C-alpha cells in the first residue's frame, strides 16, 4: 500500500532552484535512503514532506491526505504521525533524557498539559520501555548534554518513536557520529522498520551504508531525482551520475 506519494514537487529560493519536479512514492514499511552530494536538496526534500519547508509546486499525499493543502491545526495533527531525526539531534540539552523523549507526545497534549509538561503514567511507561529497548535504561535522568553523540541520537529516535509515527524522516542521522555509533543507530533504525513496520526515509551521505541497509535508494543531484530503484541495481555508473566528480572519493571497491 502506498503511504507517501510525492508528485512534481518543486521548491525555489529566490533565484536558485532547490528541487525541481521531484516524483517518487513510498510503500508502507519500506526503508528508503536518499543519497546525493551535499547541497543537492536532500534536506529540503525531507522537510517538504512534513512541511517544515513549504514546497512551491506539486502535490504530496501522505496516508491519503493532501499535505500541502492542510491548515495549521491539521498540519500539526499530521506531523504527530511523522517522526523526524536530525543530524545535530536537536534536543533540549538542559532537560533530562526522559523529558526530551516525552516531548514527542506534545502534539497530542492539551494547552495546559503541554505548557507545564504533564504526562500520563502510560506515556511515561511507554517512554521507559522505548528507552530500555534503545539501551538507554541507565540514562533516563541524565541531562542530555552529558550524553555521547550516539546516545543523543538514540534519544532523538526515542522522541520520534513515542509519537507512534507511521513514518520517520531521518536527516543525515549519522553524519556527526563515529563509525561504531553510526552502526548502532543504523541497526536500530532498521529494526524499527522491520519489527514495527514503520516506514523510514533516510538522508545519507555514505553510499555503502545506504546499500547495506535500504530496500530502495533514491539518488538526488541538483534538486532532481536521477536514480530510483532497489539498492542492488545501483552501479558505479549511477553513483557517478548522482555524485558527479565527487564520486571518486566515495567508491571504495
Amino acid at each position, binding site marked *: 500500500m502506498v503511504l507517501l506519494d510525492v508528485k512534481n514537487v518543486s521548491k525555489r529560493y529566490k533565484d536558485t532552484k532547490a528541487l525541481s519536479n521531484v516524483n517518487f512514492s513510498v510503500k508502507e514499511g519500506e526503508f528508503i535512503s536518499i543519497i546525493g552530494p551535499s547541497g543537492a536538496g536532500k534536506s529540503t526534500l525531507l522537510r517538504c514532506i*512534513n512541511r*517544515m519547508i513549504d514546497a512551491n509546486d506539486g502535490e504530496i499525499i501522505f496516508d491519503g491526505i493532501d499535505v500541502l493543502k492542510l491548515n495549521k491545526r491539521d498540519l*500539526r*495533527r*499530521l*506531523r*504527530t504521525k*511523522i*517522526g*523526524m531525526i*536530525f543530524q*545535530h*539531534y*536537536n*534536543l*533540549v*540539552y*538542559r*532537560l533530562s533524557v526522559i523529558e526530551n523523549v516525552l*516531548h*514527542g507526545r*506534545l*502534539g*497530542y*497534549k492539551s*494547552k495546559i498539559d*503541554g*505548557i*507545564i*509538561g504533564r504526562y500520563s503514567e502510560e506515556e511515561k511507561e511507554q517512554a521507559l520501555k522505548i528507552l530500555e529497548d534503545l539501551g538507554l535504561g541507565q540514562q533516563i535522568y541524565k541531562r542530555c548534554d552529558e550524553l555521547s553523540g550516539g546516545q543523543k541520537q538514540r534519544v*532523538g529516535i526515542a*522522541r*520520534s518513536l513515542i*509519537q507512534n509515527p507511521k513514518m520517520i*524522516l531521518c536527516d543525515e542521522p549519522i553524519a556527526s557520529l563515529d563509525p561504531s555509533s553510526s552502526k548502532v543507530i543504523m541497526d536500530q533504525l532498521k529494526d524499527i522498520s522491520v519489527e514495527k513496520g514503520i516506514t523510514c526515509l533516510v538522508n545519507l551521505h555514505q553510499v555503502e551504508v545506504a546499500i547495506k541497509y535500504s530496500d530502495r535508494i533514491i539518488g538526488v543531484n541538483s534538486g532532481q531525482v536521477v536514480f530510483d530503484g532497489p539498492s542492488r541495481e545501483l552501479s558505479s555508473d549511477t553513483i557517478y551520475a548522482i555524485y558527479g566528480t565527487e564520486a571518486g572519493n566515495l567508491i571504495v571497491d
Partner: protein
Amino acid sequence: MQINPFVKKRRQFIGLTIILTIFTFASIIITEYDVVKGFTSAPRAINWMIANLYPKEEALKNLPRILDKLGETVIISIGSTTVASIFALMFAILGSKTTKVNNVLSLFSRLTASIFRNIPIVAWAMVLLFSFGQSSFTGYLALFFVTFGFLTRAFMETIDEASFSCVEALRATGANYIHIIFQAVLPSSIPQIISWMLFMIETNIRSSTLIGILTGTGIGFSFNLYYKSMNYNAASLVVISIVCTVLLIELLSNYIRRVIL
C-alpha cells in the same frame, strides 16, 4: 590583476591611520580639548584623589544615611531590571527569527526595542522628571525603558542561538506554538537570560548614580550633595560603598553564571 595581499594590507593600514589622524585633529578642535592639560591633569587628579578622596572618621556618621540610599538604589535597579525583563522576553519571543509569529509583529518588536534602547537614559530621565518629579518613579521608569530595549535585543539573540534546533524538532513532532515556547525555548535559554539580567542589574546600579545626580534622587543625590558642598570625605564614602556593592554583585553573578551556564 591581483594586488599583492601584503601591499593591500599595508595600504589599508596607512589609510586607516590617515583617517584616524584626521578624526583626532577634528575632534580636538571641535571639542576644544586641551591636549597638554589632558596629559598633566591625569597625574594631578590622581595625586589629589590620594590626598583627599578617602573617608575620615567624621564622615562615617553619614554612613547609615548613605547605606539607606544605596539600598534603595539597589532595590530600584533590581526591580526595574526584573520588570523590564518580563516585557523584554515577550517582545524577544515575538521578534526572534526562531519564534516569531509573523513578520509584521517581528519588525514591530524589533523597532520598538531599538527606539527604547537608543534614546539615552538621560533623555528619559529628564522627560520623566517633568511628570514624576523627584520621586523614585523617575529613576525606576528611566532604567526600565532602557533596560527593556537592551534586554529585548539580548534575549532575541539568546533565543536564536540557544533554541533554534530544538524548536525545529518540536515543530516537527506537531507540538503547538505555546508548547514549544514553554518546553524548548524557555528551558534552553533561561541560563543565558539570567546572565543578562545580572549584567543589567550591575549596569543599572551605575546608571542610577547618573540618574540620581540629574534628577536629585537616590545615591546619586547623596554624592552630589557632598560633592557640591566640597565634603569630599563623605563623597568618597559614597564612591566606596557603590564600588563595594557593584563588586559584590559581580562576584555573586559570576558564581551564579559558573553554576548555571
